[in-house]
């Protein structure tokens, strides 16, 4: 049966696909673990910065120069999109980008301009193809290797765009990592800063009187960029963790499917082989009895 050879070829190729996807799954889960470690090491820093801001917020006078807090009429919205550089990670990118498209279209219908900052090749290619205006595409360093320095650079670029009036509202759009099997696209306001209540009275948690040098507004204005950097970095790490988790899942189901397919093919192959042997045996027996 010519079928046998064909079947053997298919079995072999399915097996090697399973091998590759299994390897990719393992790489993804290792990278995921690394990203999680990174996120954990980063956590205390964010906590401290946040804590200091809370402690300071009550001391800052509103009359001071806090341009990053000032909301103005929104004509142009800037969105930082964090996606992956590579595919083969399940529905990670398409989930993100489809809901992004919806948001962008809604904004445009509201008469606003939308400008994009992209991190990750997939989002850039996707937005370009659909004729959206991409203000800047961050290539270096690759998201996989991105460190705090990269977040710093991006935060600076966004702050600059906001303070020069290029955009009036900056948002982050990325995939938030909720668990190993759940990641949801999320939109987060970035500038103007609204999440911190300035001028609110102090919490009782802190020692109320403390020395502040040189003065509250100076320290606060130096603290703000740091805070924004942590927000960007957090988004990047979340997106990266989601990407790896998504890829891990996609590769796992691909491996499972390949293994299942291989099993089925082997069954068919063995049956065909058995049939062949039986047929040959019958031929031999038939031939022998004809001779004798």
């Amino acid at each position: 049966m010519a079928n046998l050879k064909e079947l053997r070829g298919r079995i072999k190729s399915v097996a090697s696909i399973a091998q590759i996807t299994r390897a990719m799954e393992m790489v993804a889960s290792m990278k995921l673990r690394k990203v999680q470690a990174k996120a954990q090491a980063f956590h205390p820093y964010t906590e401290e910065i946040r804590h200091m801001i809370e402690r300071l917020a009550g001391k800052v006078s509103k009359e001071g120069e806090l341009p990053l807090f000032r909301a103005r009429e929104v004509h142009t919205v800037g969105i930082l999109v964090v996606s992956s550089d590579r595919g083969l990670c399940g529905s990670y990118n398409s989930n993100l980008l489809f809901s992004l498209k919806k948001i962008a279209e809604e904004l445009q219908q509201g008469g606003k301009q939308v400008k994009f900052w992209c991190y990750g090749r997939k989002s850039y290619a996707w937005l370009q193809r659909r004729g959206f205006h991409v203000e800047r595409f961050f290539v270096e360093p690759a998201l996989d290797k991105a460190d705090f320095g990269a977040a710093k650079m991006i935060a600076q670029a966004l702050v600059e765009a906001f303070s020069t009036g290029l955009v009036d509202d900056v948002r982050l759009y990325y995939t938030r990592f909720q668990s190993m099997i759940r990641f949801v696209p999320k939109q987060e306001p970035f500038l103007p800063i609204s999440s911190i209540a300035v001028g609110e009275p102090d919490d009782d948690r802190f020692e109320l009187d403390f020395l502040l040098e040189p003065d509250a507004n100076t320290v606060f204005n130096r603290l703000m960029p740091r805070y924004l950097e942590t927000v960007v970095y957090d988004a990047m790490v979340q997106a990266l963790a989601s990407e790896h988790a998504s890829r891990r899942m996609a590769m796992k189901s691909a491996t499972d499917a390949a293994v299942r397919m291989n099993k089925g093919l082997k069954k068919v192959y063995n049956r065909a082989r058995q049939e062949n042997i039986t047929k040959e045996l019958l031929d031999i027996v038939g031939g022998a009895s004809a001779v004798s």
Partner: protein
Amino acid sequence: MAADLHLRIVTPDRTIVDRKVAAVSFQGVDGGYGILPHHAPLMTAIAQTGSAEITEVDGRKHELFVSDGFAQMQHNVLTLVCEAGEFAHEIDLNRVKAAEQKAREKMAGLDKLSEEFLRAEAQLRKALAREMLARRNSGTGSLG
């Protein structure tokens, strides 16, 4: 029991120090600070390129490089939150040299008033501060 001070130094990459020490000194934006146990609550910004000196409980001293951060003192815990922090003995002189070289090259081709120039200058200052610290401490023993 001798009074001691809890010191934490936190950077984006890791928490460098989290233990009891006897005293800490560092440079703030407007001058030097020396913090002893039970210092009054304080919050200040650290100089862009500075060093901090830790006096351990056993009296030994360690120097480290810190940059671009903040210090806060609360409930006898001193927290230095900075973007970079390295013990003097961890500083890689070759890398520092390369950074210095790069910054100098960048500065050569730039307008002295541009923002880029200032940024490169800050880089250079950081490299030089690291270098100075590493040289001053070369030859000292390892940390406990």
